[in-house]
């Protein structure tokens, strides 16, 4: 059973979904426990796979579906391939999804009461799709899984409010363009290599002359495809509305994971399919792409500054963060790639944490504007602790993981001599500082009594510290959220710090993946 862990990651959500489809419509009460169970098992299997990866001498785990194995060194059926990068992503996805199920139980019942089974089935399949993307080693299978995660995503967004529906339509159009470009790119690779297995494509491509137009255009198509789906700056139009108007649980799942998984595909394609020599040296696009990502970071930060809606602001930060990672991956050195991958993990957790906080705040105050934060430190202290940690991480202050990802990215940028990228990173950190301290200040001080007010009684102060202000909204609406929401949020907040403190361990794992980059640098 041990060696079956890789497939179990995928099967748990899949069978969970089937089970709900069969039972859930008759017994809606079963949906939630089944989902939690499926996600927990999937998470356990992901951790198991991670352990397998660590234990394996080559650092990779191959799982062969249909049991055909390789014939003449050609994979004739679909296979799974887990290396450090995908193992980390799997653990990330499954744990985020697991925590989000627990977190969103209350919200699902409130926001979509008539569609609970639908919601959970789509949710599980979305997770299955995302996990499948990170684990599969077959380019076409990757496309199918991308489409599964997209289709479920469209629906999960569209069951939201009025605005969500229209943004979901845009998402369908853009998502289809992106996925189709990806499919076309895979076709271009197939026409030149005759295989779909990513490792085999790589080995066959080594024999193909570097100036092959089809390969070059295929690479371009794949990149444009994933850029559309990850909302890389000029192609980001669909994202802000889609995530901002989606139901809470959907937003909290999709915002941290979907763009990150697309970045994973980009990195996977660059490192494992085309190979760093091809991507960085033969093509020589690094300057262009890094410049584009600089623009993405700056533009995303500017847009974020101009928004007064909480979730809109966060979505534009996501756009900027995508620029971080694309730029990092294209810096053409191991530091930049390490930074990009590490940021992938840390940004997913940060975004997740922030979306959870915003979900709690919006659900408690009913106000989607920034002003919802006014005076929240007293009313919802625990939520605000989580918020503060996530905000510090977003700004990039030690010891949170946001600092270390920025560290690696900056280091990569300096080593590569891409100073405009370095500048953009710093600019965006400062913008984040402005954005989040504005909120922290609002949450901390608004409605607080100023110095010189008549009330100076110590006991009274204590009462105010812990209870609601007598003159503010009624207590029951602003009391702290239920623990099912707070617990996962706190876990993630602690995770942010833990990931920061143990960053060298994580980068050591990533080191295996970027090792061939080091070789490249050594050759120069």
């Amino acid at each position, binding site marked *: 059973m041990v060696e*079956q862990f890789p*497939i179990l990651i995928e*099967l748990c959500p*899949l*069978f969970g979904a*089937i089970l709900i*489809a*069969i039972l859930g*419509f*008759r017994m809606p009460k079963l949906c939630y426990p089944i989902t939690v169970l499926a996600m927990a098992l999937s998470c356990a299997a992901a951790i198991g796979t991670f352990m397998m990866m660590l234990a394996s001498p080559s650092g990779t785990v191959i*799982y062969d*579906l*249909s*049991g*055909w194995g390789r*014939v*003449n060194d*050609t*994979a*004739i*059926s*679909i296979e799974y391939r887990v290396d450090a990068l995908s193992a980390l992503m799997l653990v990330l996805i499954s744990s985020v999804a697991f925590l989000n199920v627990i977190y969103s139980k209350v919200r699902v019942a409130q926001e979509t009461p*008539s*569609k609970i089974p*639908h*919601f959970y*089935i*789509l949710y599980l*399949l979305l997770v*299955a799709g995302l996990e*499948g993307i990170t684990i599969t080693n*077959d380019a*076409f*299978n990757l496309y*199918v*899984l991308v*489409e*599964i995660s997209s*289709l*479920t995503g*469209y*629906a999960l967004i*569209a*069951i939201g409010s009025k605005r969500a529906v229209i943004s979901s339509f845009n998402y369908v159009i853009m998502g289809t363009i992106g996925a189709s470009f990806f499919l076309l790119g895979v076709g*271009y690779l*197939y*026409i*030149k*290599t*005759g*295989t*779909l297995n990513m490792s085999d494509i790589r080995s*066959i491509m080594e024999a193909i002359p570097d100036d*092959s*137009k*089809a390969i*070059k*255009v*295929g690479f*371009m198509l794949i990149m444009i495809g994933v850029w559309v789906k990850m909302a890389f700056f000029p192609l980001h139009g669909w994202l802000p509305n889609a995530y901002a108007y989606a139901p809470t649980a959907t937003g909290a799942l999709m915002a941290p994971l979907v763009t990150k998984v697309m970045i994973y595909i980009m990195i996977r394609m660059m490192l494992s399919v085309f190979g760093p020599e091809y991507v960085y040296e033969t093509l020589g696009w690094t300057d262009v792409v890094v410049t584009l990502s600089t623009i993405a970071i700056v533009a995303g930060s500017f847009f974020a500054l101009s928004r007064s809606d909480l979730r809109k602001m966060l979505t534009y930060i996501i756009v900027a963060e995508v620029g971080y990672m694309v730029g990092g991956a294209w810096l053409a050195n191991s530091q930049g790639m390490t930074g990009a991958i590490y940021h992938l993990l840390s940004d997913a957790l940060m975004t997740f944490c922030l979306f959870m906080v915003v979900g709690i705040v919006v659900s408690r105050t009913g106000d989607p504007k920034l002003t919802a934060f006014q005076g929240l430190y007293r009313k919802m202290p625990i939520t605000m602790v989580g918020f503060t940690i996530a905000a510090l991480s977003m700004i990039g202050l030690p010891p949170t993981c946001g600092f270390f990802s920025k560290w690696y990215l900056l280091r990569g940028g300096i080593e590569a001599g891409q100073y405009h990228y370095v500048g953009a990173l710093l600019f965006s950190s400062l913008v984040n500082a402005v954005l989040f301290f504005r909120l922290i200040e609002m949450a901390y001080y608004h409605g607080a009594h100023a110095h010189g007010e008549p009330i100076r009684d110590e006991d009274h102060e204590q009462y105010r510290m812990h209870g609601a202000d007598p003159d503010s909204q009624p207590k029951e609406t602003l009391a702290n959220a239920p623990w099912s929401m707070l617990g996962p949020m706190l876990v993630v907040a602690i995770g942010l710090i833990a990931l920061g403190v143990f960053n060298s361990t994580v980068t050591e794992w990533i080191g295996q993946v970027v090792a061939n980059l080091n070789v490249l640098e050594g050759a120069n």
Partner: protein
Amino acid sequence: MAPMKIVALITVIITGGLLLYATGDFPAWGDPLSPANNSALSRHYIEQSRVETAVPNLVTAVLADYRGYDTMFETVVVFVAGLAILAVLGQGTSRERAAIQRSAERYQERDMINIMTARLIVPVLQLFSLYVLAHGHYSPGGGFQGGVMFGASFILIALAGGLPEALSRLSIPGALLLAGLGVLLYGGTGLVCMMLGQNFLDYHILHRLLPATDAVMARYHAMLIVEIGVAFTVTAIMFIIYAALSSRGRMTGGL
């Protein structure tokens, strides 16, 4: 929306130019020795699948066995689509329902000729779809095509006799159950392989369960099983899609 048109035009010209530029590098159309056609993978499927699976239709063999995992997710895609549509359109409020009821009334008077024709066609269609499904190993077709046709027979009933007529034969919960069972049949087959100690979807081990089969024929039969699973799901979901879209999710009236 002129600016959008210009943006689109520029995008299209650039992308089109790129793609046309790359076609120059393609092997000639129809070249049997092109990398794709002459790859080890393709040759393996053509030359070995008869030995390994005993299925003459190479597409079926590759679809249901070598790339069976893909096909399982293809089924899941269909399943997702049906659920997504139900989730998006959802149950309407009572006021909407009343409005649609009024507009639906004009469909109430059904054309006798349509109904009679449908009655003639539907059994043939269903029988043929079963043939397509069952004969997928030897001829074009298989679970997916058979399922679509079977689903189409229900759509035909709905077109001719109104959606309630079709729903009385296959209700939405029933269809969902069927769809779930279809995916379960597919995934379950894979799971059974796993329980017998092999990898997921490695059908050959099923010869322990299926009487009078060897490893090759186990694959052959397992493929039929999963194709039936596909057909279940596709039948159910095609009908659900039609039912939901033709009534805006209210499941009344119809075209």
